[in-house]
């Protein structure tokens, strides 16, 4: 019996989509479209700052994770080729 899942999903999707659209309409998201055209050009977001020591370690950790992923793949290939 799959229809309840499908119907629930469709109705939930319609409800959320409708609600978000209504919010956008009411909160002025569709107004002042001329200014909106320039939003990507106004470069006033946070500037890149110096990385703290802790941040640097976090980045090293992610790097080591990515490295571990590559090594895991190499190990997998090596095992497959020579030991299985």
């Amino acid at each position: 019996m799959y229809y309840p899942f499908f119907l629930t999903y469709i109705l939930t999707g319609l409800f959320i989509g409708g609600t978000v659209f209504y919010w956008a309409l009411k909160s002025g998201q569709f107004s002042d479209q001329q200014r909106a055209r320039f939003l990507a050009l106004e470069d006033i977001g946070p500037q890149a700052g110096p990385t703290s020591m802790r941040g640097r370690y976090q980045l090293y950790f992610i790097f080591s994770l990515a490295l571990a992923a590559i090594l895991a793949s190499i190990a997998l290939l090596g095992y497959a080729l020579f030991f299985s």
Partner: protein
Amino acid sequence: MPENLTRPNTATYLTAKGFCLTSAAWMMVATLAGLVAAIELVAPDLTGNITWLLFSRLRPIHVNLVLFGFVTPGLLASAFYFVPRLLRTQLYSEKLGIVTIVLWNIALIALVITLGAGFTQGREYAEMIWPIDVGIVLVFILIFFNFAMTVKNRKEKILYVSVWYVLAATILTACTYAMGNVIWQPDSGALSGIPDAILLWFYGHNVFGLLLTPLSAATAYYIIPQVCRSPLYSHTLSLLGFWALIVIYTHIGTHHLLQVPVPTWLKVVAIVDSIAMVIPVMAFLINIWYTARGKLGLIHEDIGGKFVFTGTVMYFIVSIRGSMMSLPDVQRVTHFSHWVVGHAHVGVLGFAGMIALGGLYFTIPRITGKPLFSRFLADLQFWMIVIGVAGFTIVLTISGLIQGNAWLNGETVYRILPQIHIYNVVRASLGLLIFLASIAGCYNIFRSLFLTSGENS
């Protein structure tokens, strides 16, 4: 500067950096898996009976790693840079971002190990076993939460179209991934019979339509105006494209099942909406191309912009092909053949992959405060991928037409294999080109993030 905006403090962009690394590293693994699989099509006995390296295991590893290891993290890296900037605030939580990246990479490692070991649910694009499914849904929810809270804390009232796309992509993927992987049935990850096929392709096509496409559109809508130093052609048109995408794209998955006894009304909806996709596609492309009109020189100067703009051209090609392929008379020849594989490569690598790489090259100098390590390597990678994707398209289209016509005329599969052998050889060669491009890109990105003082990009 408008009065309602303030200049935020400096930012570390750790989450963006983490996703840059994730994308660059996994691109190499993903393309290597694809390369080995392509070589096996030329030389099926290459790896003997090594179960880990069977085509049937490498193929899902390749596909899932490209989707979730390379392209999506690449696009998210840019999103974690530009969403706070467009909202004139800081990211809600860099710590949460780091947790997300760690979970994401753990899920990817588990993906390689489990699929390599043969633990699969056997449904295309939904092969991963239940614990990994749960992990992926969780990370998308965490990412959405991070972005949603950033929106809540925003100092800019209007949400630029890129923000709409990013929010939609993350939450809709969390939902469709859970639904499409039948996450409430951990053992099988499937329904039974035809409903399962309908659900699978609802999810399968929405991985492209509601994850890669909106994230790519978001990135292009941010980068092209910046590179061209001109405002977006029309923000209203961009919003029209966004809502049209949400309404139309969700229905088209069943065009994968035109030869299957699914209800006819559903096939009709899928075909009509596949053709109707021309509305959001052209709304996006007209907007981007008119923004770039007369500014191609500026795009050529910026390596990020060059990747992104090329990605939009590929989007035009893949979308026209996609709409055509949904027509039953066309699909009678093209379906189940290499044509579809070529189509998928133009879409995922040519469109979303190019924009993801463009996003990385545009973002990295801005989040590190240093120039890119090597513009030459980035240009080299650009041309290798362009040649690779164009080659894939030509070779697989020819090969697919040979297969499709032969099968339509009642020829058996194995008698066609000698005819398409040469195309498989060229395909594997192009795969090598893409793999080498991924190595060049990974080296360039690692050096740019960690070690270099760089050159002008």
